[in-house]
């Protein structure tokens, strides 16, 4: 099947982009989710809502605004260009940024809900035992919130794999360089190549189902009360 080889390249790129984007989202999403769940400060719910906005915007529109920001004349783009000579537009890193922004609310909400569900008594017990606040977070809070965080993370991964609107805008659709699997699917549908599109959809589905099932199986419920 001649269409298989480029599909393989696109798949590898998609996985790379989705993994990086998910990683970034987990780091920031878990931190901010914890903040929103545990700290009381004015504008807390507002911050939550604002951070959810990437969900509300059509990805293409988001992509347009991202182009404005990280483009050569954009605030961040110009700075990167000037100090590091980096141009992000049309690179796979831009695709990572796009996917990370679009998928961010998923990790955030999952983590926040999971942290809110934990009985704070367990954290108190850990503190009295002399464990530092960060240790308590890593050894008690996070493991107990694990299923919720994982749920959000898997959604973010899935969303990153499926992202194409914002990605197309900032990373373009260059085969072998920035053309992810979902952009390839989109283009195949646009070009009327239904067979090719179906093939790509099947590849995407199989890969994602495998990843999702594996992730769920490999990380058992660490809150074994049932």
């Amino acid at each position: 099947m001649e269409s298989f080889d480029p599909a393989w390249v696109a798949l590898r790129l998609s996985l790379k982009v989705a993994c990086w984007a998910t990683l970034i989202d987990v780091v920031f999403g878990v931190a901010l989710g914890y903040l929103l769940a545990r700290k009381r400060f004015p504008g807390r719910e507002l911050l939550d809502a604002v951070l959810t906005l990437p969900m509300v915007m059509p990805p293409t529109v988001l992509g347009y605004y991202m182009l404005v920001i990280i483009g050569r004349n954009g605030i961040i783009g110009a700075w990167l260009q000037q100090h590091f000579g980096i141009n992000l537009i049309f690179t796979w890193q831009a695709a990572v940024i796009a996917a990370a922004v679009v998928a961010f609310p998923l990790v955030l909400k999952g983590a926040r809900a999971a942290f809110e569900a934990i009985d704070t008594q367990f954290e108190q017990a850990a503190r009295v035992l002399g464990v530092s606040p960060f240790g308590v977070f890593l050894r008690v809070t996070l493991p107990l919130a694990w299923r919720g965080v994982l749920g959000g993370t898997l959604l973010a991964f899935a969303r990153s794999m499926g992202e194409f609107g914002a990605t197309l805008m900032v990373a373009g659709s260059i085969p072998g360089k920035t053309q992810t699997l979902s952009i390839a699917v989109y283009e195949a549908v646009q070009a009327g190549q239904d067979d090719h599109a179906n093939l790509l959809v099947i590849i995407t589905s199989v890969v994602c189902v495998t990843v999702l099932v594996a992730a769920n199986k490999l990380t058992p419920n660490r809150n074994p009360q049932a």
Partner: protein
Amino acid sequence: ADITVSAAASLTNAFKEIGTAFEKEHAGDKVQFNFAASDPLVQQISKGAPVDVFASADQDAMDKADNLKLLAPGTRKNFASNSLVLIAPQGGKVPVKSLADVTQPAVARITIGNPASVPVGRYTKAALENAKLWASVEPKLILGTSVRQCLDYVARGEVDAGFVYATDAAIVKDKVTVVATVPTETPVTYPIAVIAAGPQAAAGRKFADYVQSPAGQAILAKYGFGRP
């Protein structure tokens, strides 16, 4: 060198073949395509996307690029033409025989590209206005955001008629009937230009020239494009 070409989505199939042919003739050069609707392509280039050649589906988008001073002076050329056609689903319940039929009450839904953002929509609107059909067609319109979406609607029989490019209709010959070629006021011509700030502008020139060479033109003709 690696040449990056941003081209209108409707050129996808033809340009991919031209790219392969070009690479065969120019050993050492590689062509990377970035296909999308024409307007976002201009936005990307203006925001610093490293593009060497831009091929647009209509003059409007190229004019925008020109106004933004993105083009290498003297490189803008028309390289292909297309024609606007009225299509209907094959075996559709509502017989559409001529352009005038679009006013019939039985023809309840007609799809065109959104004139605000899709070139083919702009051509269609102008042509229908010219033919004094716009007013009666307007309430029936389903606006597509790409010519491909319009084509899908017709091919699947969701609408009774639609306006697309001849090249698009050719992709799904077995599902749609070309009812009529619609005369457009301004000819549907595709301009190409080299981008001034392109990292491989020199090689880009070679590609732009190749598109306009007999070899390139032959491939375009194969996909239904006319001479400029």
